[in-house]
């Protein structure tokens, strides 16, 4: 993993953490509902766990695929799929549907998993994963390659989620304690559209750098 890939992973994590729709807003809402900061804080790990699971599935799958199929093919096929997904996100006017605010922490993690998955959070990491993949088919054999692919997927997920968790946590606490939610009216850019553009960009990057 190069320094550039690491920086990209962290940056994407921060970007995901920044998006109110990815969970920090839910954490704040849960805190405000009971006027308890503890509720904000306990919600954040659950949200991060759901996000990690969603990203992890993609990261591990892509890494494992790369260990048996040429990285170049994975990057091109995955990149094309990613760009299409981003385009669909950009053009579709549908939004995530969910009803219910009274969730257990397990349900909150489940919510976060679904939210991240339908937004393609893990897919966005595709170019980073393919760019930093260990070369497949070494003399050490397939088993070893898969083991290191698995580790690489877990590492990517961990770094990304940590960045997401840190940014979401700082924003949640700041908004809860200091800023107040009125800031949403001014500062909530349509990140879903930025997100869709990022997906298209990530897909294109994966194809071009393959």
């Amino acid at each position, binding site marked *: 993993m190069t320094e550039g890939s690491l920086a990209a992973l962290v940056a994407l994590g921060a970007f995901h953490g920044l998006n109110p729709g990815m969970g920090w807003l839910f954490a704040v809402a849960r805190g405000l509902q009971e006027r308890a900061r503890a509720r904000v804080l306990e919600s954040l790990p659950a949200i991060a766990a759901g996000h990690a699971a969603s990203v992890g599935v993609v990261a591990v799958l892509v890494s494992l695929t790369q260990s048996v199929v040429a990285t170049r093919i994975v990057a091109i096929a995955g990149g094309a799929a990613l760009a299409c997904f981003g385009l669909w996100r950009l053009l579709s006017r549908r939004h995530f549907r969910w*009803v219910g605010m009274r969730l257990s922490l397990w349900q909150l993690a489940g919510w976060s998993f679904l939210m991240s998955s339908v937004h393609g959070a893990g897919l966005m990491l595709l170019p980073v994963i393919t760019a930093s993949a260990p070369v497949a088919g070494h003399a050490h054999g397939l088993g070893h390659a898969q083991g290191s692919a698995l580790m690489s997927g877990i590492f990517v997920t961990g770094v990304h989620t940590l960045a997401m968790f840190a940014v979401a946590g700082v924003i949640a606490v700041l908004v809860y304690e200091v800023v107040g939610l009125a800031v949403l009216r001014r500062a909530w850019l349509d990140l879903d559209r930025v997100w869709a553009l990022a997906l298209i960009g990530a897909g294109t990057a994966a194809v071009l750098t393959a």
Partner: protein
Amino acid sequence: MALWKPDPTFYPSPRDAASAPPEKLAYVAAFDRSATKPDAIAVLDTDPGSGSYGEVVGWTELPHTGDELHHFGWNACSSALCPYAPHPHVERRYLIVPGLRSSRVYVIDTKEQPTSPQIVKVLEADELAKRAGYSRPHTVHCGPEGLYLTALGGANGEDGPGGIALLDHTSFEVLGRWEVDRGPQYLAYDAWWHIAHDVLITSEWGTPSMVEDGVVGELLLGRKYGHALHFWDLRKRRHVQTVDLGDEHQMVLELRPAHDPTKQYGFAGVVVNVEDLSASVWLWHRDGDAWAATKVITIPAEPADPADLPPVIQPFGAVPPLVTDIDLSVDDQWLYVSCWGTGELKRYDVSDPFKPVEAGSVRIGGITGRTPHPAAPDLPLAGGPQMVEVSRDGRRVYVTNSLYGSWDDQFYPDGVGAWMAKLDSGADFTFDERFFPHGDAFRGLRPHQTRLQGGDASSDSYCYP
């Protein structure tokens, strides 16, 4: 096209919404009782600085006749900011306008020409029937999963049950019946929720056959109209509990839950108690894990000479107050109660919801009173304060005078007329003498619900305190 920033009319909390700028326009549903002319959405100028303040400045006629417009709502509201499915970059621009008699639903765009809204979609009755099994659509609320549309009646030859249909947020197509398990619920009217507690509440009026030709005396005295509140699990769409107010309390209509999402109480108006013709307002609240309702306001009937009364109430020798609408200010401090029979609009301080304190009252119209508006002191008025709507800042209150075509004719047989009034609600509670569109202003149609541009006290729900 979606917005880059949240729609400026969305507010995270009721506290924020109370600081919203005053509305410049009001939209009023108006219908032709004879069903020979098209119904219309009238646009009223509510900007006191404008030269046409208090006048009808826009008029969008529907393409059909006999719809009987009644209640309506916005395509999107502050609930779009809710954290579990945020989509705040949609616009509040379409009015979703059901025809209570025709079962058509119109989608009307107010954005391009706010004073000349355009019809952009018409859902025919058979779509509501085919996809949801309902007819006679009534209340519209913008909710987390789509638009919730209550309906009084069944479809395909069935009188009931009435219930809720879900409409898609963006295409406005009917998605289907909302209820997964309706339990014992059969009658329907209004619905709203405690959105942050995953609770939905519904109320009861009657099925189409019970209401469309007027109130039926035998059914009323036989206590057959609705007299219960229903509580539902908003997530699972399941009936949880019925709270029966007692069968003497006939017709439980408007539901006004607290706007503060941390609270779990609200007010429901009851039209008439058949034992003494009084009307009442009930508070629903938690009682342990269950729901309970407590009568917090009783408004007695006023004795009258039977000769002055319409046939429907002549035998009783009294005018029933007929509480047909109530509205709760966004800060949950003030409750407005319409007494359509006696022609009185009451204001209550409900800072302690269990102990409302009357804090102002005005008279206008009324079955025997016929009280004029101060702007036209020589003009006796029929009808009474009926649909009441409160501005987001709580300072302005709008009322219209028609209840429902066939019922207007029973209680005001010499003609209900058409008027709208505005009150200023502060330390005093008084009529604005500059705001009194009436008579020909409504072109022979009868005004019903008012929706204020940008939202009002009964249009939005909030997920943050």
